[in-house]
Structure formats: structure tokens, C-alpha cells
């Protein structure tokens, strides 16, 4: 008989589902079955069971081969590299827990690093907009129980956040939403006919890169002002109709994703979408929420927010916090040759950054902390495998609506493996010695 671990939190996407059940072998070492998770969530748990998993740090040799080294040696290389650098980049932080993020920031403070997380290529533009114009938001629970107008703008939860629509936004019946999907009007704005768009009541097939114009047109329509015949490929009649649908709801929410945060206009799209939300609050109750990707990218913004006041692109090189996306963001720093060492944890810039940036990582002293083998581990000089957070160790993570949730440990990591936190604690101690801090 297998044991069943209940109320497990899924450490994959920003939906951070907390209702998983995992079947574990009697001796508590193997994961046999994952219940309630979507396919990508289940895969994350099962992946930790891979037979060919790397369980010890590896150092790249002159000839390109890898040599297994001890954790002690890995700590030494990491600490000396960071301590010797004049402007190290410490990037990632989105697939690890807040405890590791906090101690990692301590290292960043001691060595004068630039700390950046995956928001830099994702929702960083959202954070810029929020700082510029504020944000009216709510929790996913409120949406489940109250929302009758749902807008998905430039995001595709059917594939990127598979349980989002069934758990919170479209299908569930809540306290004031007894009719479930029937009582909700769903609008999708996307240039592509995605699987999310196919389930919508209204799909606005906006012209690529014209979201800012369409958002502006909605604000003009709320005020009943004149509009050109079409805006962003959408007839003005439809825009006035959608404006009325939005105004007539009891409780509305705009969810948005990388289709608007990383396309033309970037932060301005979100800035304007927030202003749309603000305008709608003249008529009824509306909110806006980013569909955060990595399960704890939100947490890294929270941790840096409370430690240094800025949620990403945090430059600590001069001993105080500075922040200016465009200058202190990872890709700008890499392509402009502004950093002299790279430390990556809990993310995969090798897969997500432009080639010109990845080449720079290849050229620099570089360290990658990651349980998986990834394109990033391939370009870095040192790969430190660690236990899976949320599977083999617990810790705090923040859901996309800024709700902190404590992850659960389900099984032990392979014998002798360290967690992110344990490894970083040892690096911190060594950096402190080196810096005399």
C-alpha cells in the first residue's frame, strides 16, 4: 500500500495549486502517482524521479567534458568567483523558495551584485507600470466567488496555466457565482486563435503590436467619445459593445500575460490596462492581475521589495539599491559587457535569453544552481544540482495574486544532495569570510 500525501502545493506555475495529492512508496523514497495536478504539474513531480538525474556538482573542464566535484569545492568556486567580481549578475530566483531568495540577497549585498529575476523577460514591464500608475487588484478567491466579467488579454491559460480556468476564473461555482461559467462573460484579446480564445464569448483578434491602441480606444469608448472606424483591426462598434459589457458587470477582472508585457509598448500596455481598470471602477468593481509564470517569481519580487524596495533589476553594486530597467536589467548588462561573473539559480536564461546574452554567459565565470540539466547548465562553468523545492524540500512561495503559500516536502532528495537554501547558506558563510563582512 502506498502512502497518500495530501494538500500538496504544485511548484510549477504561478497558479500554485494547493490541492494536489501524491502517492508515495511506503518507505517514503519514491513518488508513484500524482493526483489533481495538470499534465505539466504532474511531470514536475515525476521528473524528480528520473534515473539519470545528476546528483553531484560538476565542473566544466578545458576540453569541454564535465568532472564531478564535491559540494565543498562547488561552494569554494561560487564564493571566490562572486567575491572577486566587481559586478556579478545574480539572476533567476523564480523557481526557488523565499528563504533561498532572502539568503541569496545577503550574498548579493556582500559582493555588490546586480540581482535580477525572470520578470526581466516576463512581467518586469508590469512592475514598471504598477510603479507608474498603481494597481487595483484582488485575490484569486475573490474572482472565484465574485467575478462575472473575465478578460484574458495576451495570455493563454489553457496551455500556460492549465487549471486556472477550472479552479478560479471561468468554470467554478462560488459564493456569488452559483451558475459557474454560465454566469460569466469571457472576453479574450489575442492576435491568435488560441484554445483559450476558442472558449471565449468574445474574441477580439487584435492586430499584432496594437494592444496599446485598443486599450486606449476602450477608455475613449467608456467616455462615449468619438472613435475611428477601426482600431487595431477591431471595428468601433465592437469596441463600444465590449466597453458596455465591461461596464455592466458586477465584478470584473483583466488577466494579462506576455502577449502584452513583451510585445510592442510593453510597460505602456500594462500602464494603459491599469488605467482601463481604474476607469471601470467609476461604474462598477474591476481588478487586474498578471498571469505570473514561474511558481515563485512573485515571491522574489516580494522578498526584494521588503529588503530593498524594488521587485527586480536590483543593482547593489554601489552598496545601496538602485533600479532602472534598461540599465540594471540582465540582458542589457550582458550585451553591454557590464558584468564580470554570472550566477544563475531557479531559472533557465540559456533557453529564454537572446543568443547574444547567452554567449556572454558562456564567456564569463558562471555558476548554475538547478536540479535539471538545462541549456543554462550547459553554458555555465559550474553546475550545482540541488533538491527540488516543493517536492524534496518545503518553503514559502507567492501565488500570482501575492498570496504566500507554504510548499510541502513530499519525498527525500537523493542521498547527500543539498537544497538551494543549504548550498546558499554555505556560500554565504564563505563569502563572509572572504569579504571580512
Amino acid at each position, binding site marked *: 500500500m502506498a502512502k497518500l500525501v495530501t494538500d500538496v502545493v504544485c511548484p510549477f506555475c504561478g497558479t500554485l495549486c494547493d490541492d494536489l495529492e501524491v502517492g508515495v512508496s511506503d518507505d517514503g523514497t519514491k513518488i508513484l502517482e500524482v493526483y489533481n495536478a495538470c499534465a505539466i504539474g504532474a511531470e514536475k513531480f515525476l521528473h524528480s524521479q528520473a534515473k539519470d538525474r545528476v546528483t553531484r556538482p560538476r565542473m566544466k573542464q578545458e576540453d569541454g567534458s564535465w568532472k564531478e566535484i564535491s559540494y565543498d569545492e562547488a561552494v569554494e568556486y561560487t564564493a571566490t568567483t562572486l567575491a572577486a*567580481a566587481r559586478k556579478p549578475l545574480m539572476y533567476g530566483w523564480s523557481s526557488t523558495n523565499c528563504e533561498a531568495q532572502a539568503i541569496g540577497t545577503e550574498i548579493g549585498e556582500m559582493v555588490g551584485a546586480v540581482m535580477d529575476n525572470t520578470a526581466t523577460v516576463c512581467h518586469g514591464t508590469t512592475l514598471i507600470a504598477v510603479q507608474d500608475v498603481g494597481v487595483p487588484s484582488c485575490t484569486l478567491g475573490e474572482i472565484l466567488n465574485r467575478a462575472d466579467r473575465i478578460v484574458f488579454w495576451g495570455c493563454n491559460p489553457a496551455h500556460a496555466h492549465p487549471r486556472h480556468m477550472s479552479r478560479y476564473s471561468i468554470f467554478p461555482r462560488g459564493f456569488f457565482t452559483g451558475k459557474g461559467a454560465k454566469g460569466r462573460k469571457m472576453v479574450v484579446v489575442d492576435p491568435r486563435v488560441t484554445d483559450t480564445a476558442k472558449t471565449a464569448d468574445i474574441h477580439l483578434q487584435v492586430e499584432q503590436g496594437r494592444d496599446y491602441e485598443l486599450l486606449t480606444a476602450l477608455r475613449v469608448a467608456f467616455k462615449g467619445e*468619438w472613435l*475611428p472606424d477601426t482600431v487595431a483591426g477591431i471595428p468601433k462598434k465592437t469596441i463600444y459593445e465590449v466597453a458596455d459589457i465591461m461596464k455592466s458587470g458586477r465584478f470584473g477582472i483583466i488577466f494579462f500575460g506576455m502577449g502584452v508585457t513583451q510585445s510592442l509598448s510593453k510597460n*505602456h500596455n500594462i500602464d494603459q490596462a491599469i*488605467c482601463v481598470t481604474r476607469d471601470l471602477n467609476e461604474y462598477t468593481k474591476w481588478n487586474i492581475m498578471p498571469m505570473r509564470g514561474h511558481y515563485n517569481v512573485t515571491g522574489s519580487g516580494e522578498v526584494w521589495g521588503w529588503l530593498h524596495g524594488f521587485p527586480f533589476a536590483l543593482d547593489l*553594486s554601489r552598496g545601496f539599491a538602485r533600479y532602472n530597467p534598461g*540599465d540594471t536589467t540582465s540582458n542589457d548588462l550582458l550585451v553591454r559587457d557590464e558584468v564580470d561573473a554570472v550566477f544563475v539559480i531557479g531559472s533557465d536564461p540559456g533557453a529564454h535569453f537572446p543568443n547574444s546574452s547567452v554567449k556572454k554567459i558562456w564567456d564569463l565565470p558562471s555558476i548554475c544552481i538547478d536540479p535539471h540539466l538545462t541549456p543554462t547548465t550547459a553554458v555555465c562553468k559550474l553546475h550545482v544540482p540541488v533538491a527540488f523545492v516543493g517536492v524534496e524540500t518545503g518553503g514559502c512561495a507567492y501565488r500570482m495574486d501575492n498570496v504566500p503559500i507554504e510548499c510541502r516536502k513530499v519525498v527525500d532528495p537523493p542521498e547527500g544532495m543539498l537544497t538551494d537554501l543549504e548550498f546558499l547558506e554555505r556560500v554565504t558563510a564563505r563569502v563572509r569570510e572572504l569579504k571580512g563582512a
Partner: protein
Amino acid sequence: MATVTLKPIKVPDLRLEADNIKPDAFAGKKAAEIADLHVYCGNSQYPLGEFFEVAGEGGATAAETEVVIDGDVSRVKYIGMKMTAGSVLVKGNADMYVGAWMEGGTITVNGDTDAFAGMGMTGGEINVLGNAGNYLGAAYRGDWRGMQGGVIRVAGDAGSDIGTFMRGGEIIVNGNVDVHVGTHQEGGTIIVKGDAKSKVGGQMVEGEIYVFGDIEVMMPGFQHIGDVDVAVDGVSGRFACYKGDMGERHPRRKGETIYGKLYLKY
């Protein structure tokens, strides 16, 4: 006017942060003292003299001090940041933040400037003889006050996001500009003598934008209210006048609603 000449002698491997390169910091100092001022490369501090050969000396005050950078400083940030008087001449390209938060004096860059030039400036004059980067005369992140006074002239093209949150002063670009001109603008004048791409005047509250060439895609929040004959920076002509952004809030003064004005040259 006393002149201090800085000759670049070493290209910084990382970028240099040199907020001390301004008449205010050089005034009243001899060459050796100026060479002793600090600059930063990442977390490390160096004397200015490690990267520049310093000749001449500062005047009694900033206003009597001229700084000449005799070479390329495309890897040096913050030149003329927060300067209040005097002048700076860069005989090559300069990196980010040229004249950011500048209050007075003149900066001339013979080459190009990177992003954030004239950010949040309140007075003085910046002349860029080459091209300017993004965020020219814009606001610092999170600030609702972009450029508030002074003049920025660019002989070539400028990048995106020029004059974001601008509240006063004048930006004149002889060439073309990229997307987002005067976003959230709430005062001041932007003149683009070439073409603009799109997102011109989005979320504009008040102020003026003139475009001599074409705008590829107009913002939907602007309404044509008539034509006017005006002289703009020495060029007179007939302009179509639009008011907007109609989706944005607008103040009322003397019983009248104030809009942003966008002028397109015929």
C-alpha cells in the same frame, strides 16, 4: 572661463559611473585634485585619473568652468548629471544618463548619446549632434515628473519613449523618432521634424507635440479640431491640429477643459 580637458586614456572594461564629471565638481580644483575625484566600476572605486588625463583647472564657480572630453566616452555613464551651470563638451559618443536631472548650463555631445539623456531635467541645454537613445527627457522609473524645463536638441534621430511624463521644457529632434512620444505628457513641447512611428501622445494630459513628417499609426484618442498656421522652431507652415488623448483625464481651467495638442504638418 577656465577649461578642464579630460583625455580618455583607458577604456573601462565594465562601464564607468562618473557622476563627478561636471563643472560643479571641477570648479575651484587643480588638475591633480580633479584626477583624484572618484569614479566607479561596479563595486570598485577608482580615481578619475586612472581613466583620464586631466589638463587645466576649474574656474572659481561652476558657471566659470568648461569641461572638454577629448575623445570617445561611450562606456562612461552620468556625464553632467545634476549639473547646475558651466559647460560640458564631449567630442565623441557618450553613454547613458547624459545631463540627467540637470538644472542649468550647457552640454554638447558631438556624437551619439545612449538612453536616459536629460532625464528629469529642470533647466539648461543639451545638444546632441548625432543620435539620441531611448527615454530622452523622460522621467526616472516611477517618477511622474519627466523633463520639466530647459531645451534638448538632437540633430539626428531619437529612440523610443521620448518625453515620457514630460511637464515642461522643449525637445527638438531633427530626424525621426521611434514609438511612444510624449506618453503621459503633462506640459512642455516636443518637436519632431522627421517621421514618428506610432503611439504618439498616448495618455497625454496637456502640452504640445509637433510632427513635420508622417505618423505611421495615429492614436485613436485624438480628434481633429481644425487647421492652424504657425511658426515652429523657425519653420512656418500649416498644421492639422488634434486634441487628446480623449481617453485620459484632463484638468479644467477658467471653465475650460485643457487637452494635449498634436500638430501634424501638411
